[in-house]
């Protein structure tokens, strides 16, 4: 698998991860090496195999829909890097 700069930046954007030029080469190489290794899975014919999508044996986990005490606003905001006592604050989205 060859990862060119465009694909690398595209994945980084999807992952919302900054990818400065200085980090590109190392990331490209390590992605390619792991992806090549993952491609060994192609050696197995799986045309008649269904993907395993659920590991839990539980069918339905039902519980009563009741109101329980949740964390307070103050508690909810306590770890925020920036907040105004009511909301999380982020840079302006619209002019």
């Amino acid at each position, binding site marked *: 698998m060859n990862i060119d700069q465009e694909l690398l930046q595209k*994945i*980084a954007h*999807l*992952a*919302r*991860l*900054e*990818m*400065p030029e200085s980090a590109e080469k190392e*990331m490209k190489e*390590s*992605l390619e*090496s*792991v*992806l090549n*290794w*993952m*491609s*060994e*899975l*192609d050696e*197995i014919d*799986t045309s008649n*195999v*269904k*993907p*395993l*999508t*659920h*590991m*839990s*044996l*539980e069918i339905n*986990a039902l*519980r009563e829909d009741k109101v329980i005490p949740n*964390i307070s606003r103050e*508690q*909810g905001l*306590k*770890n*925020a*890097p*920036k907040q105004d006592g009511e909301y*999380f604050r*982020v*840079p*302006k*989205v619209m002019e």
Partner: protein
Amino acid sequence: MKVYSTLKDIQTDLYAGSITCRQLVEFYLKNIEEKNNTLNAFLSVFDQEALEKADEIDAKIKAGTAKKLAGMVLGIKDLLCYKDHTSQAGSRILDGFESQFTATAVQRVIDEDAIIIGRQNCDEFGMGSTNENSAFGPCLNAVGENRVAGGSSGGSAVAVQADMCLASLGTDTGGSVRMPAGFCGLVGLKPTYTRVSRWGLIAYASSFDCIGPITKSVEDAAILLEIIAGKDEQDSTVSNEKVPEYTAFQTEKKTYKIGYLKEAVESEGLQPEVKAATLAKLAYLKAQGHEVEAVDFPLIKYFLPTYYTLTTAEASSNLSRFDGVRYGHRSTEATDLMSLYKKSRFEGFGKETRKRIMLGTFVLSASYYDAYYTKAQKIRRLIKEFTDNLLTEYDFLVCPTTPTTAYKLGEKTADPIQMYLGDLFTVQANVVGLPAISIPNGLDNDGMPIGFQIMAGAFEEAELLTFAQLIS
């Protein structure tokens, strides 16, 4: 103070009045003070709290109201949340994070009078096999010079190994409890997938993650599992299966049918002493009257590529919650919302975590989803069916926990694939969701511990623990 290996011995002395919980906590705190600077097992120590709690439990013992875990001094991996205490998943992205709630597993041990002594070092988000991927620096093995602890629950293992606490709660996504337990000469138990509630466990790969104990004895692993396992309204994935009395080890002598993974035991990459110790254990099992047979596992080569395809995919999704908005690190360089996300995440995550997020995003992206992600899900089914089938014929599947004993610091960091291969024998249990335990199995020529792994069928922890106890 005498060095204890089991809760039972501690409780005998506590109830005889020859020691107190305060003395126990002071003993562990002294060891932490003396050794933690070098070993780096604990990231925070809750000294005052632990001492206060010790006095409270000493009073309860006098009053006859103490519960099951009175006298157990426990550490918790940095992936478990504990209300009003820092939890950082070994990462800078969670700088300053103090949890608003307590993980169910942690709450359950506290409710049984365990004393939580501190938060333990680990690979960032559990992504690593040596504890070298922690933002807080590696945790060192207490045996040997400059040897790794194993990972990702490295701090949790070393803390027990170096008598900084009696036991730890770790987490196991691909071997993260069993591998460091093996490297440190301890018992590490990964329960059946969904046996233990994961409420309050910072998620890495949700179809793999399990909480499990690291202890000095099989008995203590059983005591802890009995308490942390079972239904929880906060986790809809947890199993409703009844929790048996794991501590009631079956005493009647039974012989078992045991399969050992031929490819694992005969693998060229196996360190000679590990191979010798494993073969000796198999000979011992035969001598004890158990039936021991080699089993072929042709899919072994595909365990790790399957594991990494699926876990990186799940990690890329789980770790999207770290965005610099609600908690943790926020970049000061951001100019708009998009750059706030991107810069905060780049600065906050370590190299290995960034790489796994990128890999996971790639295998889940529209053009590659079927070729990588769906393909791995299909092979996961093949591995699971093959393993489940074997376990209808055999009571247990055994192999060494790791191909070698603990590496030297930095020995594996240059080649990621070599690093990943260290998990070869442990990942199977996570890929298929089955319980497995690592027990000590002697030392190599340098005195480094060797681990022996036993895997059982789903929800057969009672049999697994009985057998582990029997052959320890």
